[in-house]
Every structure is written in C-alpha cells, then in structure tokens.
C-alpha cells in the first residue's frame, strides 16, 4: 500500500497513537448525485482537525461537530443530510443528493 493522502484509517491510527481522541465518519448510504461514494471516510480529532471527506465540503462542518461530540460521549451516531433536511440552509447538499453518515469514536 502506498502512503497517500487518502489513507484515512492510517491517519486515524497515527492520531490515536499520539494520544488524541479520534472519530471516524463514513458514508453508509447515498441517493441521487451525492459527491462521494459509499465507504468514503473522514477522520476527526477532539480539536476538530480533519482529513478526508464525506461530501464535496458542504456537510463536513456539521459532521465534525457530531464527531467531536462522539469522541466525548462514546456513542455512535447516524446522520442524514439532504435537501429536505430541516437544516437545509446550513448543511444541505447543493447538488440535490442525500447522504447518510455513520460517526463513531475510535478505540
């Protein structure tokens, strides 16, 4: 395996090794023209540093907030994003697609 910027799990392990609180967000379902395929991942630490992506950048802010909360309370979360979401103006997908993102603490 070549070391690339896409090695999200490697980054998660490395951050964990540095003693940081770490969470992973994973795209588990998509509908319509979602920007990133199922399985795409974002790694987040307790301070909100992130690597990778679960969208074209439109929902990462909200996902990072939930990830930081998951690091604190240890509870996994399933997040839904889409144009019909009530938070549409904050985190709606401009492309009109919908995605489901699973967020969980590592370790």
């Amino acid at each position: 395996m070549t070391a690339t910027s896409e090695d999200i799990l490697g980054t998660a392990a490395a951050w964990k090794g540095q003693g940081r609180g770490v969470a992973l967000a994973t795209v588990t379902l998509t509908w319509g023209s979602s920007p990133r395929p199922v399985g795409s991942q974002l790694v987040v630490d307790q301070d909100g540093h992130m690597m990778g992506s679960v969208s074209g950048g439109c929902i990462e802010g909200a996902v990072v907030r939930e990830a930081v909360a998951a690091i604190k309370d240890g509870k996994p979360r399933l997040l839904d994003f889409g144009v019909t979401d009530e938070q549409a103006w904050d985190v709606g997908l401009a492309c009109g697609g919908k995605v489901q993102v699973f967020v969980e603490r590592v370790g």
Partner: protein
Amino acid sequence: MKLETLKAVQAARESRRAVVLVKRIADGAEALVYGESVDGELASAPDVLAAARAALASGRSDTVETSAGKVFLHAFVPARRLIVVGAVHIAQALVPMAAMTGFDVVVIDPRRAFAADHRFPNVTVVQEWPDEAMERLKPDATTAVVTLTHDPKLDDPALEVALKSDAYYVGSLGSRRTHEKRKARLTEVGISEAQFARIHGPVGLNIGAKSPAEIAISILAEIIQTHAASGQPAERPAKAA
C-alpha cells in the same frame, strides 16, 4: 470502531488482502470477513455472512437489513496497481500523481542511476530486469502497466509479459514510428496482432502534452478512462455533483 479492528483492516490492506468490515448501525458492533475466514460474532448469522461475502466479491460497500439488524458492509479491496517500467523523468511526475489517485505504484528499472531511491521517495523501486520483475509481480486484472524507457531491451520484455497477462491497461511511450518498429520486434517473438493491439501507443490521451509532467497527466488520464470503461468497482468515484 475498536482500535484492534482498525489495525486488522490496515494489516489486510497492506498485504493486499480483501476484507469486509461488518458494522451494526444501532450499536457499532463489528466483525471482519475475509475470503477464507471470519472474525466476530456478528458475522455468524448466515444472512450477514452471505451479504458480506457478496460485498467482498463485488468490492462495493453498502447498507443492508439483516436478521442481526441494519448493518453497513465496508468493503476494502486491494488498490489498483500501476507498474511503471523505466525510472525516467516522466515517471518522476507520474508516480506521485498515481499514488495520490490511489494506485499502489511499483517502478522497475535495472539501471542504478535511474532507480536511485532519492528520485522516488515513498515508492517501491525494483532494481531488476523488467521481464524478471514482471514475472514476479504477476500483473492481474487490477493492474496497469506502462513502459517509459524508450529502450527496446528494457521495454519489450516487459511488454511481452504484460500482453500475456490480464492487465487492464498496457501503455508504451514512443512515436508512431517507434510503435511500428516495436510491432515488428514483438511479432517476431510471437506476440499476435490482437495482443499487440492492446498496447496504448502512442501512450496517453491526446491533450497536446509536451513536458514530462504533462505527459504523465495524459498517461494517468488514459489509465483512469480505461479503468472506468472496464467497470471495475475499486475506488471508482461517484458522478461529480
């Protein structure tokens, strides 16, 4: 996600072994399903195991309803490989771009001055004769091969192995005239017309590339295009928004 699970997935990826991570959405319970073995209680339900094996075969991740609840099947299949013959200037541009795109990259060049490690940081450089290295690396249906040396005694033996393999892309640097001469030489060693026709030559998409980096982009673009057309699942991005 347990740290042990994460490390097990990483170990599988490093040894180019396919694995499916089964995860129950409700509580985050996990299991790992490999081609021949299973690790984790969650995958003991026959329908969960069957769904995981299907994901392992297709390389596609998905969320499915099972007798054990709603589970996410995260398929980690080995990355596409790119074998570059010739540690030349174009390779110096092509290799990092291909790595960034998600390819496992191997560079082959028996010439010490070219194969020097400092020219290709973080990449496997094999300092062997191309035919021997290629026989050992065994190009498969997830492998692309491109020859860049311009030297028949290095390019031709590598092409011979590549054309007899399942490699989904075979490209070779050289002008039309060079390519015609190559055809004559390879025909003499028993490569058929149909086999030779698999070579992308002149190599790369015609974007008017001139510099080594531009030529590298045209080659990588052609490899991506060929891969997408072949319908393989690995790392194929969804349609852009």
